[in-house]
């Protein structure tokens, strides 16, 4: 049997084959299917087109209402209602209604993701679960419907690409700086159709929060998945959420990669992606003259405890600049609760933050922080495409929670190291 990458092993197992090769078309058994309130209604519509609509394995389906939540219009409320009724009709127990949080935080946190799984989600950032050693990939609503009806879905086995990340990033550097740096090197489509495997001492040194940020943004360079091998930190996370019996999958030492890239993040400066592409990455010092109107901390990319902690550390006892709206949205209710317990929310509110309920919110220009013409936002999110957060004439800069908090403080794009207390 030829040596295999972890992505190939997972797809082979799910397809019931001894091995697979890049370029093969396989039909594979899907372990989890996720839909949300914007993509799910189209999935329901597709299923209802069948002469006999069915969900082969209701226990594998997870529905999360997170994008337009709480409902901000009658339209959104209708979408939520469609999914509630569907969940009840098809006995879907894994139904996370308004307030649970952003799908890519909720799934791992509620124990729905385990190493070695094949997960599809009708959301492009489904690749987040690669941080747990799962082959997780974004698909469309109709794909999700097919996977639900058949329990299986077609896949083209991707070529694997290895990214070895050397050096140890130290706070305020986090996973966001690492992945922005990588996307800047690889480009917006440099990993298109590929499965990326992140390895190296930087990955080992980073927290699970940071690793999720890295896998999350793999799609921003076109990747189909962004996997990491399981280690003690992964197992500890899984223990805490009650996932036992993990069967980690490792790449064979002789497995072949279409490309191997080495990146050193040891002495890295905080990174920022300037509009209009997540690949338009520059060191923060080159953008220090950019003034901001809004700063947003949240989303599936960076709304986790590590992010809230560092923002609170930077803003403790200080006030954000009077011209800046600082919006903070914890990625899930559990994160919100823990942040309250640690006093992070109090610190941020006292500093002038507007704290919203767990939701995707302004990331996709949905609600709770939409931008007007000629406004500038620095954001912890994943995309700065033209028009992403509102007006096509607004500008979005992507950065870590530390850089966003530091910029909220001064009113211009700021290196967090300049404002952090020793």
């Amino acid at each position: 049997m030829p040596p295999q990458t972890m992505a190939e092993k997972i797809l082979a197992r799910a397809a019931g084959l001894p091995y697979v090769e890049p370029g093969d078309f396989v039909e594979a058994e899907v372990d989890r299917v996720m839909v949300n309130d914007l993509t799910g209604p189209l999935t329901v519509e597709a299923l209802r087109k069948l002469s006999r609509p069915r969900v082969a394995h209701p226990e594998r389906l997870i529905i999360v209402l997170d994008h337009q939540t709480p409902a901000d219009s009658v339209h959104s409320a209708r979408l939520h209602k469609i999914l509630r009724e569907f969940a009840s009709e098809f006995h879907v127990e894994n139904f996370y209604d308004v307030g649970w949080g952003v799908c890519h935080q909720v799934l791992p946190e509620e124990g729905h993701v385990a190493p070695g799984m094949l997960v599809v989600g009708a959301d492009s950032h489904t690749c987040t679960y690669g941080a747990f050693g799962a082959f997780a990939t974004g698909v469309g609503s109709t794909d999700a419907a097919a996977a639900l009806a058949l329990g299986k879905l077609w896949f083209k086995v991707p070529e694997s690409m290895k990214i070895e990340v050397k050096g140890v990033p130290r706070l305020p550097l986090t996973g966001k700086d690492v992945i922005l740096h990588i996307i800047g090197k690889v480009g917006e489509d440099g990993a298109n159709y590929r499965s990326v495997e992140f390895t190296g001492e930087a990955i080992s040194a980073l927290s699970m929060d940071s690793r999720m940020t890295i896998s999350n943004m793999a799609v921003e360079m076109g990747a189909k998945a962004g996997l990491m091998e399981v280690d003690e930190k992964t197992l500890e996370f899984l223990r805490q959420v009650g996932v036992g019996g993990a069967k980690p999958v490792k790449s064979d030492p002789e497995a072949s990669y279409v490309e191997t890239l080495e990146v050193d993040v040891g002495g890295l400066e905080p990174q920022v992606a300037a509009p209009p592409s997540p690949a338009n990455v520059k060191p923060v010092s080159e953008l220090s003259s950019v003034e901001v109107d809004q700063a947003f901390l949240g989303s599936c990319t960076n709304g986790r405890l590590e992010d809230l902690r560092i923002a609170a550390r930077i803003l403790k006892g200080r006030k954000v600049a009077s011209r800046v709206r600082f919006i903070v949205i914890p990625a899930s209710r559990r994160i919100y609760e823990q942040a309250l317990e640690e006093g992070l929310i109090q610190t941020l509110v006292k500093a002038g933050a507007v704290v919203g309920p767990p939701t995707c919110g302004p990331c996709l220009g949905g609600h709770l922080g939409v931008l007007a013409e000629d406004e500038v936002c620095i954001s912890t999110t994943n995309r700065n495409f033209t028009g992403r957060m509102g007006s096509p004439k607004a500008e979005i800069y992507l950065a870590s929670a530390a850089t966003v908090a530091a910029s909220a403080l001064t009113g211009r794009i700021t290196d967090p190291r300049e404002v952090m207390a020793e």
Partner: protein
Amino acid sequence: MILEGKALKYGDNINTDLIIPGKYLILTSPAELAAHAMEGGGPEFPRKIREHGILVAGRNFGCGSSREHAPLALKHAGTRCILAESFARIFFRNSVNLGLPVLECPGISRQVSTGDLLKVNLAEGYVENSTRGVRLKAKAFPDFLLKILERGGLMAYVEARLGEEE
């Protein structure tokens, strides 16, 4: 499957926020979505694509979100086929699943201008530019995907599969 139409040309990295901005994702009706197709690049697309029919683009067409609203809006606005240097993978899947033909055609951005008359042969994988008198080779469309397209999309294929299982 042979398709004919005039080219309407766009550039590289046309992302899903441009194809259908996030604020319209609360819509599910194809006609309503179609009215806003490519709105991120201006309001004129729905009128122009009805006159042209074939969308031609550069690299990484459809990058970004998994929103199926993007190919749905393009298809119902009157796009008969999309030819690009390359596609983002989720957009590619979504289009096939909805029965919208998408063909990877390396070199097309240099060989086609807006208004050129095109003839597309999906099964054999080529594009004829009648205006310029050139024939371009496209990447072969795998049989498996062609079957889905010929049935009109993935759900029709699923329906057939479920029928076989019974």
